């Protein structure tokens, strides 16, 4: 019987095949003559990566085909691997590619519109100013880094394509203000905070304040701040003011805030929680602390949540929250977590083996039943002797649940000896809701019977991968032969640190790249801690 896809005219077949990535487009050429012909003649290839290393491959594979977009970096050859660039719409070139290497391609791409040529990776410094102005001044630029640039001149006449701006040390606030104001499509600003330089707070504040950037002038919704080693991390309440004002003035549209390598010293979290409380637009927050320099060794006093702060934090509404938990912050997190009504993703990284009491999220689970789709938590073994998965069963669209046992006493060890103080898990079957794709339980105690039942229940609904680690030998023996027959890839000992990595490892191992893989991970006894 003729397949339904054969009813599609060539034009529509091409449209469908266009959705495949380049690799799959070439792969499906072996399906039948019609597909091969359409891919050879009519389907266009996007995002072809051209480097010195890929040159030969690009020449053979894409040289004669219809290429729609090319990205070039690490390329020094002065010839083009393409014989036909009539369909080229976008040519994205690293600024580090020599001009003569680009010329051959540009000569052929005579139908490329000026707006189709975009440069990225531009590094603007005092010493590169002349060269940047000359070569890229009139070009479209998608990303640039500014570092040690004391001039106030803006070398770019066109900032419409600028999507990403990385601000390093010693940058003129005047220039920054111009960039923030004129880059109307800016999506992401990254700031690296260095020791001895003007702080990102002061920089943003000054450029906003001095240049009177009107609210909504800067369109970027994402701000990433990385605190480099050596940055003076002393954040006291006096500094909260400038941060807050800096964002209000310079980046009033910020909705996603990422703090990386964040250090908290004497006033644990006070500034960051106040900042969070004063930014009602924020929907995504990620706070990752600096490894190996934790305040626990500095005998921090717990953060006291005053009535004022309590009221402010109770107003915070996020859709995505990723954080590293410190016991000193428990009061503030408790308020934030219990106030959420639209949270979609909750992720807690572990740091120095600190996990939390699962009871802290119970109010959240009752308020976000319609929205929570992904939960990744580190559980403290001392505070949780038993986890009843039924508490997650009413989450209507839960797709991924990862729970891992942390025990601060066991940081240097990989095993919990003799399963002492290992929390148990109950009601595993209750968690198998319609939408659950990934379930990862690591470091818990559960019965083989529960595991087998879970596998059987889920295998009927298209389970792809089961990973039971080293311990369930009896399961391995009994299922080793039967699982593949049931269509399940049995991934024993893939040694991932999370369900996510199990998924990646499985895809790699079995050459699968499905849109989603249904996966179960049961790792009893072993507790993995990420290397610091």
């Amino acid at each position, binding site marked *: 019987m003729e397949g339904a896809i054969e009813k599609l005219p060539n034009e529509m077949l091409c449209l469908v095949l266009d959705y495949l990535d380049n690799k799959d487009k070439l792969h499906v050429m072996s399906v*039948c003559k019609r597909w091969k012909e359409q891919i050879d003649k009519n389907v266009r290839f996007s*995002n072809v990566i051209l480097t010195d290393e890929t040159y030969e491959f690009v020449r053979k*594979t894409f040289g004669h085909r219809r290429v729609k977009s090319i990205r070039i970096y690490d390329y020094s050859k002065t010839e083009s691997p393409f014989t036909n660039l009539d369909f080229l*719409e976008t040519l994205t070139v690293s600024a580090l590619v020599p001009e003569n290497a680009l010329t051959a391609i540009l000569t052929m791409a005579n139908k490329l519109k000026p707006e189709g040529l975009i440069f990225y990776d531009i590094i603007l410094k005092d010493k590169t100013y002349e060269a940047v102005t000359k070569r890229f001044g009139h070009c479209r630029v998608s990303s640039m880094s500014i570092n040690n640039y004391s001039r106030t001149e803006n070398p770019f006449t066109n900032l419409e394509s600028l999507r990403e701006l990385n601000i390093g040390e010693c940058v003129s606030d005047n220039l920054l203000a111009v960039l923030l104001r004129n880059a109307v499509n800016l999506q992401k600003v990254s700031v690296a905070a260095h020791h001895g330089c003007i702080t990102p707070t002061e920089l943003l504040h000054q450029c906003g304040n001095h240049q009177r950037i009107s609210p909504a002038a800067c369109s970027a919704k994402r701000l990433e701040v990385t605190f480099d080693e050596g940055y003076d991390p002393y954040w006291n309440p006096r500094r909260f003011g400038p941060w807050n004002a800096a964002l209000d003035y310079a980046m009033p549209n910020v909705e996603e805030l990422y703090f990386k390598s964040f250090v908290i010293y004497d006033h644990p979290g006070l500034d960051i929680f106040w900042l969070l409380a004063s930014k009602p637009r924020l929907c995504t927050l990620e706070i990752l602390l600096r490894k190996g320099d934790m305040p626990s060794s500095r005998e921090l006093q717990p953060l006291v949540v005053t009535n004022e702060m309590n009221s402010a934090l109770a107003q915070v509404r996020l859709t995505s929250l990723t954080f590293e938990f410190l016991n000193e912050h428990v009061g503030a997190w408790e308020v934030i977590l219990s106030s959420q009504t639209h949270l979609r993703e909750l992720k807690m990284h572990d740091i120095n083996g600190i996990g939390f009491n699962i009871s802290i999220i119970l109010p959240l689970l009752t308020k976000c039943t319609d929205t929570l789709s992904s939960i990744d938590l580190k559980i403290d073994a001392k505070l949780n002797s038993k986890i009843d998965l039924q508490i997650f069963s009413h989450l209507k669209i839960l797709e991924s649940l990862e729970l891992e046992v942390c025990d601060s006493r066991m940081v240097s060890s990989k095993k919990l000896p003799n399963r002492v103080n290992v929390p148990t898990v109950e009601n595993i079957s209750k968690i198998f809701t319609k939408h659950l794709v990934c379930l990862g339980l690591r470091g818990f105690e559960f019965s083989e019977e529960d595991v087998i039942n879970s596998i059987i229940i889920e295998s009927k609904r298209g389970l792809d991968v089961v990973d039971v680690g080293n311990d369930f030998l009896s399961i391995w023996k009994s299922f080793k032969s039967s699982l593949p027959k049931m269509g399940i890839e049995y991934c024993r000992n893939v040694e991932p640190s999370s369900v996510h990595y199990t998924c990646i490892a499985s895809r790699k191992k079995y050459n699968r790249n499905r849109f989603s893989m249904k996966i179960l991970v049961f790792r009893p006894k072993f507790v993995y801690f990420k290397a610091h």
Partner: protein
Amino acid sequence: MALVRVISSDGAAFLVSQRLAKRSGKLKTEIETFRKSSDNSEAQPEIRIVTIRAEILRLVLQWLQQHQNDPVLPANQNEQDGRGDAEMGQSQWDRDFLAPMDLGIVMELILAANHLEVKGLLDITCKLVESKITGRTVDEIRTAFKLKSDFKGNEEEQTRLENRWCVEN
């Protein structure tokens, strides 16, 4: 509320609001053409879609109804953006909507979405087909789409060899 009568190729009539209908590029154009050519501004437009049968037209209208408050995607949106929308915009409702459909219906929906210029529906249906291809072996794809190899001699092997990198890498 201004209404429009949309009639399928097999004669079934669907009465929908003009606001909803105008989320289809094709229906929007037809309504505007009708308005320009009609003397009676109160007259109800009637649009015949001769290429789409009732079952499929009902599905398209059902999808439009569900997404009536979404921003309208431009038909000429570039591919990368389009893909992003397909992924980002595919709600649980969309997944449930597509789940029970066999490939024959999906193909008809693709044709209908293209004809009626409903970019969002076209995106998610194409994405569904793409998900049935990605990561599969050639034999699995042939089975899924009921296709037979029509290569002669060593043509298939030759094609495989030319593109062997895509399996190896």
